Structure formats: C-alpha cells, structure tokens
C-alpha cells in the first residue's frame, strides 16, 4: 500500500512539473508579454523595459525557468507585480475560500445524491425514479452559470431569501458566520453534481441489488433495511467515490464560474484575472497547485476504492 501511495505521489509531482513546464514555455512565448498587460495603456517604452528587466524577462527562457523552479522548490512562488503581494499570500488568501466552496458543494452533493440514488434504484422504474431521473436530466443539462443566474433571480432578487453575494472576508470564520450567503453558491455548484452522483449511485446500486450476494443475504433472512445498510450501499459507494475524486477538475472549473457570479474571490477568480493580465507568477503557481491537488484527489479516491473493496489486490496498479 505504501509503495502504491509513494508511486502516485511521485506521479503527482511529475505531472505538476510537466504542466508547469508547458505553461511556463507558453507564457514566455507570448508576444508583448506581461509588461503592457500589467503596466496598462499609458506605459512608456522606458517603463516597459525597466519592468522587463526587473522581472527577468530579458533573460533566456531556460535561464528564467531555472530561476523560477529553484525558487519554487524552496517555497517561494514569486511576487505578483499586479497584485502587489507575494503569490503565496494571494493563494493563501484565495485557496481556503475555494476549498470551502468546493468542500461544501461536494459534501452537499454526496449527502443528497447517495440517498437519492439509492431510493431511485430501489424503486427502479416507478414514478419516483422517473421523476427524479427527469429532474436530474434537466439540471445536468443546464449550464452552471444559468443555474446560478436563475437562483439569484428567484431567491435573491425576487424573494430576497438569500443574498446574491457570498460574504466578503479574509477569514473563513467570518464567512461561516453568515452562512446564508454561502447557500446559493454552494447550491449552484452542487446541483449539477447531485444529478451526476445520483445517476452513478442509482446504476451502481441497481447492479448491486441484483447481484448474488444480495440475494444470498435476503435468502438468509436479513431484513431489507439491513441488506441495504450493510451490503448494498457500501458496495455501491465505490463507483461514486471514484468519480468524486475525478470531479475535482470539474469542480474547480465550475467554481471559476460560480465565483464570478456570486462575488466570491477564490482560486478560480484569481486564476482568471491572472490569465487576463498575463500575471505569470500567479498563473504558474495556481496551475502547479491545481495539478497536484487533482492527482492527490484521484489518489485519495483510489485509496478509498481499495479500502471499500478488499477483494481488489493492492499490487494491481
């Protein structure tokens, strides 16, 4: 098991490094570069030259990469001229917010989807299943920003039940202190995933319910509830767990949209504005982190998969 984990961690680092290299080279090959984008329209040629010199853009690309990577391994992600703060500070401010949003959305999705999918599977073909299935389809087919927009229009503007903006604060404590502001953003991000996870749960549960050992358990006299709780649900969870791990890129992508709509400046907004302003240090740092996070996410999912199914051998990687 540890060997497996070690190998995957190594893979995570390798992937992150590869991605950083690609993005680094791409950023440096942009004509015009960062100078004008950061300094603005009134930048004079002298100011541009000075900026390029201070940022090291007048050196060769391999040299620039070496400087950057050697700082990164020491934990120095560089300085964002545009934000006027170290990149690590900017990320340290934005990351917890995104993690909170994504975490809450995932938790809500799972809490709703697992029971929903299970009930759908149990009542397969019945009106409840069809109704939820239809709603799932509808929700899954609607783009995230449209869901967000509709929620705002109905819940925030028309009926003023929830605020249209998430709380603005540096500290998570303050944010959690006014939870009503998080309701709409979390809901928007979660709805699409609820539909997805519920369908996985439903199909996985359906298969489990018709499998041999479930029939055996029933034949042995266990009650329906016992069978569900002890066998059906845990076995069906595996497929859901694995796609949760793989949902991370999707959730991060969704959060870019949700953060824009709900005024919640997290990693998504940070990256998006960094990309707009050619703020290379910030872009690179985020790409690195997100890559690592995604691999770790799938790693956790894989470990959970194994833990839930001891029949799968650990050596089969």
């Amino acid at each position, binding site marked *: 098991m540890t060997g497996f984990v070690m190998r995957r961690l190594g893979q995570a680092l390798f992937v992150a490094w590869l991605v950083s290299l690609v993005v680094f080279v791409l950023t440096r090959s942009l004509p015009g570069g960062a100078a004008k984008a950061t300094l603005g329209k009134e930048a004079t040629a002298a100011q541009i030259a000075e900026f390029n010199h201070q940022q090291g853009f007048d050196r060769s690309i391999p040299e620039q990469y070496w400087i950057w990577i050697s700082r990164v391994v020491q934990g120095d992600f560089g300085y964002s001229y545009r934000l006027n703060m170290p990149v690590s500070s900017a990320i340290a401010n934005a990351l917890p917010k995104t993690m909170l949003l994504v975490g809450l959305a995932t938790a809500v999705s799972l809490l709703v989807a697992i029971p929903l999918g299970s009930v759908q599977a149990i009542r397969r073909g019945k009106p409840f299943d069809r109704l939820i299935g239809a709603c799932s389809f509808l929700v899954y087919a609607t783009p995230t920003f449209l869901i967000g927009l509709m929620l705002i229009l109905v819940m925030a503007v028309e009926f003023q039940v929830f605020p249209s903006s998430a709380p603005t604060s540096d500290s998570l404590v303050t944010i959690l202190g006014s939870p009503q502001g998080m309701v709409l953003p979390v809901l928007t991000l979660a709805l699409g995933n609820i539909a*997805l996870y519920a369908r996985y749960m439903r199909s996985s549960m359906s298969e489990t319910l018709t499998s041999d050992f479930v029939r055996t358990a029933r034949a042995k006299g266990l009650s329906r509830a016992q069978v569900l709780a002890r066998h059906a649900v845990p076995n069906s969870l595996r497929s859901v767990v694995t796609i949760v791990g793989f949902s991370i890129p999707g959730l991060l992508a969704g959060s870019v949209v949700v953060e824009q709509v709900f005024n919640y400046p997290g990693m998504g907004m940070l990256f998006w504005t960094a990309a707009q302003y050619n703020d290379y240090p910030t872009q690179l740092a985020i790409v690195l982190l997100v890559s690592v996070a995604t691999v770790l996410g799938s790693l956790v999912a894989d470990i959970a998969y194994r833990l839930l*199914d001891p029949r799968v051998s650990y050596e089969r990687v």
Partner: protein
Amino acid sequence: MNESKAPSPVVPTPLATPLPARAAERGRWTRRIRGIGRVLVAYKLAVAGVIIVVALAAFCFVGPMVYHTEQVHGDLAAANLPPGSPGHPLGTDDVGFDLLGRLMLGGRTSLIVGICAAIFATLFGAVWGAVAGYIGGVGDMLMMRVVDALSPMPSLFILIFISHILPLNLLLLILLVSFVAWLGPARLVRGESLSLKVRDFVQAGHTMGGGATHAIVRHLLPNTAGTMLVNASFQVADAILYVAALSYLGISLPPPNADWGTMLSNGTQFTHAGYWWMIVFPGAAIVLVVMAFNLIGEALSDAFTTRTRGSNV
C-alpha cells in the same frame, strides 16, 4: 460489481460500463444495429431523444435555407426587439441579428463542435486505448502513464490560458474540447482490450497471419463499439455544456460566428434589462439538445447492461 473492470476509475461518463464478453463474442455489425434499433424502440424516452436531435439538426441545417435572415452584418437600430416584432418572430439580439435565424446558425456550430469533438475524442481515445491494451507491457504502461499524467491537468485553466494566445476558430475549439475529453475513452477501451485480446477470435486472427493493425482495427475496436457509442453520446452532451461554460468566461468564437453557448452567456448580460428572449431561447436549445443526447446515451447503456443483468438474475 463487475470484477474485471479496471481498478483505475474512468473519467465521469455515467454508466459507461464495459461491454461484457458474451455480447462481444456475438458482435457483428448488422445484428448490433438491429439490437440497438430494438432497444431504442423499447425505450420511448430514447426515441424522444433521437427525435429531438434529428429535429434540432433539421432546424439548424435545413432551416436557414428556408428562413433567410441577415446574419453577417448587424443592424444596431433594430437591436433588442422583443419576440413578435415585425419580421422577427423570436425578437432580435443586442447587435440586431434576428434571433430565430441566429439560433439556427448557432445550432450548427454547437452541434458540429459537440459531435466532432465527441467523435475525435472517442476515436482518438479508442485507438490509443486499443493500441495500449494490445501491445501490453512497457508500451502499455507508458501510454497509460501519459493518460494518467494528462488527467489531472487543469484543463479549464489551460484553455483560459491558450485562448489568450491564439485566436479561436472552429477547428481549434473542437481540438481543445477533444483534448480534454479523449482520456475517458482511452481508459475504457484499454480496459476492454486487455480482456478482449485473449479471446479466441483475436488469437485466431494471429494464427492466420494478421498483424497488430488487423487485430486492433478488425476485432478490438468493433467489439468496443457499444461502449464507444454510449460514451460518445455523453461526450456530445458534455462538450456542448463545456463550450457554454467557456463562452461565459469569454472564450468563444468571434462574431459573426454564433453558437448557443455564446448566445446564452451574452444574453445573461442583459438579464436585468428585461431582454428575456436572449436567454430563454438559447438556454432552452442547450438544455434540449444536452438532455436528448443524455437520454440516448442512457438508453444505449441501459440496453447493453440489461442483457447481462438479465442473465444473472
């Protein structure tokens, strides 16, 4: 739970379980198509899905031949007209294009991008996976490592970044979406190739002198066609949604090109101005087409797994 399924999970495409061996053995094209036909007939919703797709395709590709509108040069004086205005049954958008005509044009792009991206991704991924599964050993490991390495790439971030460098055109958009999507099919097909390559008919092909290409093209790929079809249906739906999300972030084909995602996100800028038609119509179109492809995919995958489920119970 099907234990021959590869432990490494697949990229989320709902219910894309591999085609079991028995059905694969039986596989011949005509029988398969008839089988699908039977299935679709049995599932009314799936039929509805197909009808929706066909109707939308007709609307988008045949429609403009019947209903002519100016879709290249805007007319700001006629902008933001509500549905029912003379000459504009669905109203006009913010630069003055007739909305109905624009929906047709936009649908062409959306459907083309969705279907082409799905085909590219599925084909490329299938070939990759089949080759990897077939050759096995070091080659397989290297090829799948590439897949594993690319999976966690924050694709949206990379796309945002690329869109700032390169001007977007149709081909580039299709390639970018396929680039994100081919990993799932690759894993699926590789998993199946592993089990298929030891089957008799593949071995027989070897003894008769057929090479690797022959094995892959004539045996492996056709036998994964069922899974691929299911996967592709969902890919189309996901691609269309993905393009819509990209356009909300400003990554879209430049005017006078149109696609439903861009029309929708453009329309959301005018929510409070009261121009509801710019949101409702493209939004409904997207939801319809995505639902339709999902229904088709669901039904196909239900059909393929019902066979085996039926035999276990």
